[in-house]
């Protein structure tokens, strides 16, 4: 019974939301360009699916490149910062500053610097995804139990062995948490990049501008839901990675199976 509830309850909630949506629209006579009905959006999505898929692929390309780049660079930088407190102290304020700068403000500048299209989308996504990965991974690398560090000293492990055999595996759950946050915001980076990279790329952020200009409101909603679906792709990838890496040992995955 419980097993089925996991599926039925969310579906039930979804039906309620749709009913409320249609009900409010009809009761108050809200017009389509203010709030289109769900069916209108589905129709728009079907009609526009060609453009939407193409735009989504453009955005996804930039967003995934930026996401992977953030994962790799973020991870490596965290290791360097964990190895050297000096490095950590010198770099951390600037990483914070980078994070505090609203990307939307710098996006136009970045587009000018990097040229419109893929490079700009990639880099903007990278900027957005980078911080949660570095912050979490560094935390994981430095929060190793003191006794474990003593153990590694006792067995005469060098610094490199300590990082590879102890700190990096210990930091994996933290790194994956960082990836999960980054994955859920990667599409923000991607579409922000699109907005400013405009017609040269033609991603989701761009066709939203076009639909908006043409007052194609249901199509705009359809584009929004498409971006949401793309976000789920990221999260799914991270969850699979999470399972692959932690399935044997981490409490978040294995719950008292003995």
């Amino acid at each position, binding site marked *: 019974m419980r097993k089925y509830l996991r599926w039925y309850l969310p579906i039930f909630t979804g039906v309620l939301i749709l009913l409320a949506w249609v009900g409010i629209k009809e009761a108050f006579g809200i017009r389509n360009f203010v709030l289109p009905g769900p069916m209108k959006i589905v129709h728009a999505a079907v009609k526009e699916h060609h453009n939407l898929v193409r735009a989504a692929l453009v955005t996804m390309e930039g967003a995934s490149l930026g996401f992977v780049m953030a994962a790799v660079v973020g991870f490596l930088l965290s290791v360097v910062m964990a190895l050297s407190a000096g490095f950590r102290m010198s770099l951390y304020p600037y990483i914070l500053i980078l994070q505090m700068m609203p990307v939307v403000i710098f996006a136009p500048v970045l587009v000018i610097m990097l040229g419109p299209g893929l490079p700009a989308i990639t880099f903007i996504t990278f900027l957005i995804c980078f911080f949660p990965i570095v912050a979490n991974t560094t935390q994981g690398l430095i929060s190793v139990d003191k006794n474990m560090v*003593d153990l590694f000293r006792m067995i005469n492990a060098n610094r490199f062995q300590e990082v590879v055999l102890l700190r990096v*595996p210990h930091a994996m759950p933290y790194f994956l948490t960082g990836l999960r946050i980054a994955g859920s915001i990667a599409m923000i980076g991607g579409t922000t990049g699109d907005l400013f990279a405009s017609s040269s790329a033609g991603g989701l952020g761009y066709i939203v501008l076009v639909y908006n200009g043409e007052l194609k409101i249901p199509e705009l909603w359809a584009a929004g839901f498409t971006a949401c679906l793309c976000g789920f792709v990221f999260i799914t990838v991270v969850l699979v990675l999470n399972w692959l890496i932690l399935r044997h040992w981490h409490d978040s995955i294995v719950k008292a199976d003995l």
Partner: protein
Amino acid sequence: MNPSLVTISGLRKRYGRGAVVLEDITLDVAKGEFVSLIGPSGCGKSTLLKLIASLSPVTSGTLLVDGMSPAKARKETSFVFQEATLLPWRTVDDNIELPLQVLGMDRAQRRQICAQVRNLVGLDHVPGLYPRQLSGGMKMRVSIARALSVAPKILLLDEPFGALDEMTRDRLNEELLGIREKRGFTAFFVTHSVIEACFLSTRIVILAPNPGRIHRVMAVPFPYPRTVETRESPEFQRFTTEVSRALRAVNPEGR
């Protein structure tokens, strides 16, 4: 008398500018001895172990391990921590092999040694399990196997059985003596349990707190191998009472 393996003389330990933790410790431990360190909290027994392990530097005085400075002797020393300190992402075998892997030993040789020490601690049936799948006692066995994998001359144990239930603790005490019989290491054993100290040791060092110093050293009169019968004999009971009394004399709350 065997030659002395660990020589401690006039040793003093102070963390930074804080209180003195150990004052004027002098102790000679011969090869093959099993020395228990017992005393109230704050008497510096764990600290003494850390000094021998070279996990912390000596402030002043002499400490020689196998004729060398503790740092140089680290290759001959293994430490068993209060918690099992197993790496949760590694299987039992991979945990046991960790020190050998760090030494750069090849895989085949590692497997062979691992199988030996795993057998020694009675864990033949669990090579591929992860630490989370093990009970507290089994985790500690893995931890001991890992310490033994490098065939140390000296085994330092910091209250290894403190968190275990009494039955498991008794079993592990007996097994530890069995392993010692086969391996012939010299042991330093920190504990809060008088019975454990009496059952395992050749000598018991009672430490007094503030600052930590040696109150009394008592030789344990029972021959090895010791068994359940040893623990149940009236002589053993009488001896533990004597040790308890000596311990009470240094316990600030017990006065």
